[in-house]
């Protein structure tokens, strides 16, 4: 029998918010892994940080806004959302453009997180 502390799954998201299927399928896997009592870390890097922009209006694109799902993840036991600092610095985004419940970590901290994880899946 495994416990939440024993299995850690990192889900690394580099696809942009305009690639809705990739993003949705990343979150779906995270939710199911959390339901199996795994500790799930969502790590946003590169263009993936665009998923975290708060004032997106998918309606203008006649698309569905998939970002709202990120706002309630703690209710599904996904409590750790990380953003790679260098990806933010390389974008034109500021911290206050992004959802508030995220932690900013360096490239080396991302590497360390991944080295210590039991599972790593990239999207």
């Amino acid at each position: 029998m495994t416990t939440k502390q024993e299995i850690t799954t990192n889900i690394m998201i580099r696809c942009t918010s305009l690639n809705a299927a990739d993003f949705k399928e990343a979150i779906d896997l995270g939710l199911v892994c959390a339901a199996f009592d795994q500790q799930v870390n969502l790590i946003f890097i590169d263009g993936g940080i665009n998923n975290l922009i708060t004032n997106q209006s998918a309606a203008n694109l006649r698309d569905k806004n998939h970002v709202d799902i990120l706002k309630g993840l703690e209710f599904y036991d996904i409590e750790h959302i990380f953003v790679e600092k260098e990806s933010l610095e390389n974008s034109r985004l500021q911290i206050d453009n992004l959802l508030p419940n995220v932690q900013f970590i360096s490239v080396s901290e991302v590497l360390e997180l991944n080295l210590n994880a039991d599972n790593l899946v990239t999207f």
Partner: protein
Amino acid sequence: MLAILLNSAHSAQKYMTHEFTILVSASPLNTQSHLTAMRFIEELLQQNLTIRSIFFYQDAVLVANKLSSPPSDEPQIRSLWQNLSESHDLELQTCVAASYRRGIIDKHEANERALEHFNLHDSFKMTGLGQLAAAMSSPQVKLVQFK
């Protein structure tokens, strides 16, 4: 792109006691990812290591479309997976949600939706993400992704 994602904190010796779950997420049109995944599986089997499961997610589920017909002088990815599965009694699992999203429909769903046809190849089995998550929950299982 090949992404072999292993916990490097473990030594190679430790892997000898592990089972492997193979996650394929690349489109079958990205033939190299699928071919590399199959070569990796064959190598594991040759070393008497255990394959716990083979799971197709995202665009990789398109490989289960029995109507896809690549030119005869190109790799027949679906047939190669079928041969591997039959030779070693390995189940090929496709994510049901990812499959329906991409138009891969099994007989049951076709009946439910009153569709005229289904196109899931017999060599593949529709399963939920829970099958993958369950495998990932086992400390003995190492996950390897081909993206």
